[in-house]
C-alpha cells in the first residue's frame, strides 16, 4: 500500500491524540501545530497552505487528506448532528501508520492536540486561532503568512531538539549536580 501523504499523516496523528474531534477542530489543530512548528523549528509540519476561510484558517487540501484516511481505512468518519447542522467526527482505526515525523514534530502535534482537546470549536477559534500572528491582520480569502510565526533565531535561544535530547538524558539518569557543574565552569573561567 502506498505510504500516506504528509497531510494525511498529520491528521491521523492528531486523531490518535484527540479521537472523536470534528472537522473544524481537526483543521485548527493542524494549523496550530504548523504555527508552533514555525516558531520552534522554522518550518511547517504539514503541506497545507492555509487561507482565511469563513471559519478561520483552512485549505481545501484538507478534504483530500481526510478522504485518503477514510478510503484507506486509517480513520472513520461519522455524521453527527450539531444543533441544526450536520457535523462529522473522526476517529483513528486500528490500522497502523508509519509516521515520517521527527521527534520534535511529533512532540508539537501531541502538545497541540492535548492542550486544546477540551476547548469547543468556537472557543478554540476565538481564544486561540484568531489571535495567532498569521490571522491577526489577515482578511477573508487571503493566504495566511505563516512565517509571521517565525521568530528571529537567537543562537542562545530556545532549541526544541536540544530540549528533547536533554529530557532523554534526564530520563536515562544522565545528569549531575548543578553545583558541581557550576564549580567546574567557574574553575574554567578562573584559569
Amino acid at each position: 500500500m502506498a505510504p500516506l501523504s504528509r497531510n494525511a499523516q498529520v491528521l491521523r496523528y492528531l486523531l490518535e491524540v484527540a479521537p472523536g474531534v470534528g472537522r473544524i477542530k481537526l483543521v485548527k489543530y493542524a494549523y496550530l501545530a504548523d504555527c508552533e512548528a514555525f516558531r520552534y523549528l522554522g518550518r511547517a509540519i504539514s503541506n497545507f497552505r492555509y487561507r482565511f476561510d469563513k471559519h478561520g484558517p483552512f485549505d481545501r487540501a484538507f478534504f483530500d487528506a481526510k478522504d485518503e484516511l477514510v478510503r484507506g481505512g486509517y480513520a472513520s468518519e461519522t455524521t453527527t448532528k450539531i444543533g441544526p447542522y450536520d457535523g462529522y467526527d473522526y476517529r483513528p482505526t486500528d490500522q497502523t501508520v508509519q509516521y515520517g515525523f521527527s521527534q520534535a514534530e511529533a512532540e508539537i502535534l501531541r502538545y497541540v492536540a492535548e492542550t486544546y482537546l477540551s476547548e469547543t470549536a468556537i472557543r478554540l477559534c476565538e481564544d486561540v486561532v484568531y489571535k495567532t500572528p498569521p490571522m491577526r491582520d489577515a482578511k477573508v480569502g487571503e493566504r495566511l503568512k505563516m512565517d509571521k510565526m517565525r521568530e528571529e533565531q537567537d543562537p542562545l535561544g530556545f532549541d526544541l531538539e536540544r530540549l528533547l535530547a536533554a529530557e532523554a538524558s534526564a530520563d536515562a539518569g544522565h545528569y549531575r549536580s548543578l553545583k558541581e557543574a557550576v564549580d567546574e565552569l567557574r574553575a574554567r573561567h578562573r584559569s
Partner: protein
Amino acid sequence: MSYALAIAPEAEQDLARLIDSLPSRRRGRALDAVLAELEKLAANPKLAVKSTLGRPTYRVSFVVDRVRYNWSATFTFALDEHTIVITQLFRVPL
C-alpha cells in the same frame, strides 16, 4: 521541602555558552546569580510556569554591573522525585 538541583549534559553546554557570551569580568558573578535563582526554584518549583510546549519554565533574571540578563530554564523532575533536572537554559528577549 527543597529539591536537589541537577543539570543534564545538554543544559550544561547551554549554560557554558551563555556564560561565554558575557564579558569575562561578569562571568563569575553571573554564575553565582544563576545558581541563586535556580535555588529559589528548588525551594519552590511552583514559581515556574507551564510554557515552552507545556514544559515547566522558570525565568532566570539577574543583574550584573547594572546590566539585566533575562534567561529561562526548562526542567523536569527526576525519577527519584527529589531532584529537579535542568534540561535547557536559554536567552529570552525580555
